[in-house]
């Protein structure tokens, strides 16, 4: 009997030694310590023994079970420990990646260009240092207009100026191309404005111009509505308000429904539900005449929209100066 117990003890020790993973360990448990394991079988044999031998046998088997279980759990522990020593620590940070990226204004400009080119607009450019002729005269701006003052515009020492709008590109384009035409002109413009959270002496605008047979105020409205819907979502609404610009008549200020509150009123839209986006209108007949286009034959529309304004709304940026500070902690967010 004792012999039988010793054999079992040895066999178990060998099997336990041989087990190097949790699967093998489970098999060992099943064979010796399980509900139908060999220890159970030993207990079963007890009935066949004479009654006086039973207590001693029971004690011996119980002692054996205690030893086996202890050995088993020790092995299980050591196996667990060795497994985790080899495992990788998933919580460690990966190495920092240094990726490149486009400036947020460039990303917004790309979207603007994408939308308008898909609507048949070309992309044009013009100089940033301009003549007063292109910046003002040709755009029907009288010599006394306040925008011409030193306090509003920046002038070069030689008498030229930094363009205050992208609108001179309208004139340059119409001088080169005859209608029908459709173009946008994104670019930098300059004003004599002290920088603050909403002003910058240099900022980005996108000009739009379409000249053709039978172009209407309604098409201007439809075009801008479609543009803003693609930019801010299909439920965007658009509102035209009368305004005055020397180079358009009728002129309209363009509002879109607030992208934050969807028109209900919030802090950003000052409770009005509307956000001011830029100016637009039908090209003034004087401007068409200036480039020898007959306003009786052709009509046109034009608009000028602020790119920073759109970027601020899309990305939730609350200070225009951030765009020109180029702090990497800002740039990396886009």
């Amino acid at each position, binding site marked *: 009997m004792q012999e039988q117990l010793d054999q079992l003890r040895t066999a178990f020790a060998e099997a336990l030694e041989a087990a190097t993973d949790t699967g093998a360990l489970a098999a060992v448990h099943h064979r010796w310590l399980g509900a139908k394991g060999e220890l159970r079988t030993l207990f079963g044999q007890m009935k066949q023994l004479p009654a006086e031998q039973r207590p001693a046998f029971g004690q011996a088997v119980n002692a054996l079970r205690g030893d086996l279980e202890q050995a088993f759990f020790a092995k299980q522990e050591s196996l667990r420990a060795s497994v985790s020593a080899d495992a990788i620590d998933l919580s460690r940070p990966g190495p920092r990646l240094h990726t490149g990226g486009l400036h947020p204004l460039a990303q917004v400009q790309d979207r603007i260009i994408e939308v308008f080119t898909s609507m048949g607009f070309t992309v044009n450019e013009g100089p940033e240092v301009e003549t007063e002729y292109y910046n003002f005269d040709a755009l029907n701006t009288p010599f006394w207009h306040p925008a011409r003052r030193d306090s509003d515009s920046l002038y070069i020492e030689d008498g030229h100026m930094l363009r205050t709008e992208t609108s001179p590109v309208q004139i340059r384009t119409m001088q080169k191309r005859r209608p029908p035409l459709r173009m946008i002109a994104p670019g930098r413009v300059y004003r004599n404005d002290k920088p603050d959270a909403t002003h910058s002496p240099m900022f980005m605008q996108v000009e739009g111009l379409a000249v053709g047979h039978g172009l209407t105020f*309604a098409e201007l409205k439809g075009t801008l509505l479609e543009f803003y819907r693609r930019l801010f979502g299909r439920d965007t609404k658009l509102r035209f308000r009368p305004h005055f610009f020397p180079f358009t008549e009728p002129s309209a200020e363009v509002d879109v429904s607030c992208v934050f509150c969807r028109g209900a009123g919030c802090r950003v839209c000052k409770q009005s539900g509307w956000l001011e986006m830029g100016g637009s209108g039908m090209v003034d007949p004087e401007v068409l005449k200036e480039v020898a286009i007959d306003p009786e034959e052709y009509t046109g529309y034009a608009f000028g929209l602020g790119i920073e304004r759109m970027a601020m709304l899309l990305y939730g940026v609350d200070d225009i100066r951030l765009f*020109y500070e180029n702090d*990497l902690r800002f*740039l990396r967010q886009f």
Partner: protein
Amino acid sequence: MKISLNWLNDFLPVSQEEAAVEALVHDLAMLGFEVESRESVRRDLSGVIAARITGIEPHPDADKLRLVTVDRGEEGPQTVVCGAPNVALGKRVPYACLGAKLPGLDKPLKKAKIRGVVSEGMLCSDVELGLSEDHSGLLELDDSWKAGECLDERLGLCDTMLDIDITQNRGDAFSIVGIARELAALRGVELKEQPRELPEPSGEEAVKVSIEQGCAQTGAPRYAGLVLSHITVGDSPRWLRDRLEAVGLRAINNVVDITNYVMWETGHPVHAFDRREIRGNEIRVRFAKAGEAFTTLDGQQHELDGEHVLICDGERPVALGGIMGGENSMVAEDTSEVLLECACFDPVNIRMGSRRAGIQSDSARRFERGVDMDNVPEVLQRMARLMIDCCGAQVAGPIVDEYAAPRQRPEIALRPARVTALLGLDVPKERIVTHLRSLGIEVREGEGDTLLARSPSWRFDLEREVDLIEEVVRMEGYDQVPDQLLAGIPLDQPANASLALRNRVRDALVRLGFRQQCSYSMVSPDLLERFHPERPALRIRNPLAAEMSVMRHSLLPSLVECAVYNLNRSQEHVALFEIDREFHPDGQSETGCREGMMLCAVLAGRQRGADWQDTERRFGFHDLKARAEELLRELALKDLEWSEGGEGPWSANTLSASRKGRLLLQVGQIEPRVLAAQGCEEELFALQLDLEALEEIGAGLPQYRAFSRQPLLLRDLSLLVEDRHSAGAVREVLEQGLRKLLSDLRLFDIYRGEGVPEGRHSQSWSLSFCAPDRNLRDKDVDPLIKKTLARLKKELGVELRG
């Protein structure tokens, strides 16, 4: 311009209810008048009544206090403690009941014990009632007040102020009546007239008026005057002061206040002279003489030029026409007779004249946008009426009116079909007529379908058919314009090739790990000077600040500035680029400037920071070189002529690439002394690509070259090279000699020290070979390597390391 809704209510019904004010703000916006801000003013005097002083006793415990008994009408008598100096029997003063919420007090009025005497209620000065800052004594009510009468009805105030943005073209709306006119047109209501009927003049007092030849056309086309007598100069009545203060004007005295009031109400600036100071009983309107000096009523002396209009009496100038009155003839406390002026001035003359003289005045602000020239008598009558009511004035004579150059308002032809054609909105002819007439535009039928329209005297912006079309759509409502998307523009429009190329370069830079920056084109001249002292710069005549006073002729300084900014803020990995214009003065160009498109990129700081896997490594020249090579590969640029060495901000560690003598690309280290001047201690590497040169040369598309699918045969060679020979030279020989089978080569180690003789170093090259059609064996490459080693030895003295 600020307007008060109470004031506006004189002309058409306006409610102060929240919803009504909202609707008003909306209507104004849709008429083209944006309300920039809005403010409510409330002065609730409901707990304050008029009381008559019936008894005055000394206070038992205080010298300066008295016990005053007042009659409160139905409420009966009451005794209160009062410290005001102007307490007198029989006077009518305001009495605030317990619980009254006084505008000048924080809490409702409570019973108070003052030096041992209980006081129920209080007698009030202007301060407690929120009427003014005058705390010199009790507000004295005149005899028209009955004891017990509530003050709220006569002195209370509930008003809303709107600050409205008036566009440059709408001088006609720069007044209460102007805004009222627009609203009345939109809402289809009649404008109420304001009282201006005058009694017969008491005499023949008049001042002779003449406008000098030539001055009428371009200076002052109209001048009218009226003499008033029996004036008592004093404070204006409360309602008038309230209105002026509400719109931001300071009350001065009744005469001056009324001129301001009339200006704000009618939009027509007017002036009142002290009649005593009008010498020779005449007014002559003339241009100033160049250099003529004049002192305006604010005490400032101005030197005038030949285009300023002067209002003169028989001897001297008394006002700078349309801009400001003179110090010598202003109304004084003892003035009893005034000459009222209502005149018209040329808008451009006033705009330029006030700008030249450096004067901004409410008067100039109105005249420069255009002021109705036909309402002069009405304005004078309105002003006189108010002076009769508020200053005790009498009309002393007739209106003298010199209208030397009447304004012409020719008829404008309007084709109804054109309205639809331009707007894309169908407006029937009858509606067009209704809209125009509601705005005071005279309309009659012309030939065919045409309408003939004449602008009203107050509008200066209606000259062409298109101007009338804007009026039609404004009245119809901008929100009635449908949104349409029409085709009609052909799609064969020219593409923008330079933009496409620029974007290709830009996207390559992003893939190479650079962040795009966007910096001001205006920079400091010192900054440019540090990098390129040899280049001339375009200077701004009126810069915002010295550090934004020149247009940059190089992007490099901006990139360096931005890199330094970030390094100083512990941003260790700096890889930035910008693609934008450089500005070069150019006398040949119509804009005086040549604008060139440039790419500039910089690397500085750590290429990689230390972490648990790797050690840190700083950026070096070759990091940038590798990126430049990759960029050139993407742009398929070949046949470039390379040279070493730089000048100006570029150190000797610089490579330049040109094609046909035109500099295209520079890749190099920036001179440390230039960086030091910029406060930068770090090494900084920059890349500059001339995008115009690139456009001319033309970037290509990468062309596919077949590669072998056979396995590679690898060999490493360690070579002993004299220090005077570069890796580039060795590489060239290796490539030449092995070109038949070489697939790639890589320099994987440079070593100096033990085992390497003095004056030499070891270069370890890893070579990979393949053939297009077979598996290579050692015997295929061995002879080739042997031959190449012999050539290396012969040409460069290179030996195989043992």
